[in-house]
């Protein structure tokens, strides 16, 4: 276009520009000091997508606390140094556990709130869709805990996931079962998988179907039950009749409570029960079922008694002191806490408010120290797909109401009880 302009006009323009430039420069010089000041108070806005109402509100609030705690620590420690101590400001958006809302909220965060990065969104279905939005607007999106494989299998440049892929959760569960067999000599033959018929449950079940045969395990029961099931007895009776060695369960909290109670009522006695986090790691689960949870194994990303890093105990103590109803971290919360630190490291590295630069920082990150080390593997880095390398799951067993890590042995605190005592024999 320019070329078409008569040179005169062009000349005028040039001059005009120059003058404007000079004016701006003077302004800049004059206000430099002032600018510097305002800069110090500046905030880095980060969006957090979690369910804060609806059925998953409990879980959402739990994660929210973890984020708040991490941000409090970071800001008190002087915020992001590379940005003259800019403070991190988390802006929460309620997904209501609805993937559609998740998308529009992600959009709102980016366009209205102008966040430089997003963290979230707990449920796979929501992360799955909202990452799409972030990709579209080229804003980095850190996923602390969503397991659906596809999330990092779409060649996205802006999605980073800390969590282990869902299909591999099942692999870890199967490995655990096999290892326990070797370790105790009490090996299992037939396993059953009972899961809530939602994206998460279906992902686990798919994985079990894939990995069980490789360890010579036969699947004796493969039962998905509908969400909002009012009575678990039918499922439990089926479980009982299949007389399984291992029962692998996947449920949200309400079902988990009903299931355990019914299992106890019906005296279902396999070698072991193995949960898949979610409902079984929800604090209100142990609070409500109490003794019944004893000896129950649960797959989890994290627990308070891991031995690999001093931060685990010390941060959990601090957290417990800080939060109102002195809760421990659970897996989800711990990952949110650690993820906030990964985000912090990325921001430090990027030294910029530009989402693209922050994205590159994520891609290049390699963390081996700091509170991010709550996560039970080092180093923390992401592969080309944005999936955390070396991510792995652990197994805990409920002992006197505590979640004691039992697998893998090298970082665990406790020797597992395997097989678990029969219900009749428990007092």
């Amino acid at each position, binding site marked *: 276009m320019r070329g078409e302009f008569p040179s005169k006009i062009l000349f005028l323009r040039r001059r005009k520009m120059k003058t404007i430039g000079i004016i701006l420069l003077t302004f800049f010089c004059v206000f430099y000091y002032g600018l510097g000041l305002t800069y110090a108070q500046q905030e880095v806005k980060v969006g957090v997508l979690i369910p*804060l*109402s*609806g059925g998953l*509100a409990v879980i959402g609030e739990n994660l929210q606390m973890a984020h708040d705690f991490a941000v409090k620590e970071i800001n008190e420690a002087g915020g992001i140094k590379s940005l003259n101590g800019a403070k991190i400001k988390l802006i*929460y*958006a*309620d997904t*209501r556990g*609805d*993937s*559609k*809302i998740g*998308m*529009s*909220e992600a*959009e*709102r965060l980016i*366009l*209205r709130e102008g966040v430089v990065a997003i963290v979230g969104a707990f449920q*796979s*279905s929501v992360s*799955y*869709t909202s990452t*799409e939005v972030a*990709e*579209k607007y080229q804003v980095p999106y850190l996923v602390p805990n969503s397991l*659906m494989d*596809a999330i990092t299998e*779409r060649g996205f440049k802006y999605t980073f996931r800390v969590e282990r892929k869902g299909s591999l959760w099942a692999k870890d569960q199967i490995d655990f079962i096999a290892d326990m067999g070797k370790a105790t000599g009490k090996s299992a033959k037939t396993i059953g998988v009972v899961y809530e*018929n*939602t*994206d998460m*449950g*279906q*992902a686990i079940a798919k994985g079990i179907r894939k990995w069980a045969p490789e360890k010579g395990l036969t699947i004796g029961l493969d039962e*998905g039950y*509908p969400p909002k099931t009012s009575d678990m007895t039918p499922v439990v009776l089926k479980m009982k009749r299949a007389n399984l060695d291992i029962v692998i369960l996947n449920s949200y909290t309400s079902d988990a409570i009903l299931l355990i109670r019914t299992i106890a009522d019906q005296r279902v006695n396999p070698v072991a029960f193995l949960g898949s986090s979610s409902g079984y790691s929800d604090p209100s689960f142990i609070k409500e079922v109490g003794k019944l949870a004893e000896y129950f194994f649960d797959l989890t990303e994290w627990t308070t008694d891991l031995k690999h890093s001093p931060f685990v105990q010390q941060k959990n103590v601090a957290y417990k002191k800080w939060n109102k109803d002195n809760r421990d971290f659970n897996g989800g919360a711990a990952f949110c806490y650690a993820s906030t630190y990964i985000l912090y490291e990325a921001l430090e590295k990027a030294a910029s408010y530009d989402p693209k630069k922050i994205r590159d920082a994520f891609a290049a990150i390699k963390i081996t120290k700091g509170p991010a080390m709550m996560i039970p593997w080092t180093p923390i880095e992401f592969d080309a797909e944005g999936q955390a390398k070396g991510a792995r799951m652990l197994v805990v067993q409920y002992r006197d109401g505590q979640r004691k890590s039992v697998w893998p042995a090298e970082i665990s605190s406790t020797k597992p009880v395997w097989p678990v005592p029969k219900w009749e024999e428990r007092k």
Partner: protein
Amino acid sequence: MSWNRTLFALAVLAAVLFPLVVRDPYFLHAAITVLLFAFLASSWNIIGGLAGQHSFGHSVFLGIGAYVSTILFIYWNVPPFLGMIIGGIIAAIASIGIGYPCFKLRGPYFALSTLAFTEIFRIIATTTEQVGPVDLKGAAGILISFRPGNSFVNFQFAEKAYYYYIILAMLILILFIHNWIEKSRWGLYLAAIRDNEDAARSIGINARRFKILALMISAFFGAMAGTFYAQFFLYIEPILFSSALSIEILLIAIVGGAGTLMGPFLGSLILTPISELTRTYLGGTYAGVQLIIYGGILVAVMMFAPQGIIPPLAKRYRMLFERRA
């Protein structure tokens, strides 16, 4: 008459200019949602308003439309605009199967039976993961990968304005169809059936046939909305079949004024932003407040203006809003 025509024209004009004035994509997004639900409620309005058959199963057609066009698009690269028509036709055929048993029933029975149908579809969509070559992904839902740029072939646009004008056009189309039906002979039949089915049959109207015809049209457009939904949000899941969504749709139509031409639009204009805004500003801190407000509105309307908010207005702007000219 002309006065109302001009009013209508002005409204359309304002709608057309909206994106040029409001550049903020967030508001545009909200506006599109408003229009989408206005369109959905209008499509419900043909069976629910004109024929007075208060179906609680409209989301079934939405779901069918979304799944059909999406699967065709992903597996056989059928352009969604074509898929939209195919989905519509399939939904219309399905509606015969739903209408045939349900139209034997009246009042609450009809409502409950249609409700049951949505549940059945939802459950099937949730539990089936694989159908021949097609992977329905069960509860996980299907994501349509985003293709950059603005393409009518892919029915995907980087600028939201495209979506806005498409759904606006669809809405205007259905309003004209509604108006045409209402004025036509069988529009009068439908009104008779709505007011008193026994009397309608006693004067030689084959009630069942006309109800099913109305349902088919309603289903066809419901499915079109489904395709639009899929292409706009680029993600579909079994929730699309949920009864909650059905109720939301019918709510919008009723609150606006079932059977009236502009009722669904007005209803959506009021309810959709409320649920959006309350969610945005209250959602996080006070879980569920938005639903309390929503429920409050619903109760208020049912108790004080059960015909919806249009009929009171209708007194003033008769020809444009009146149930029958």
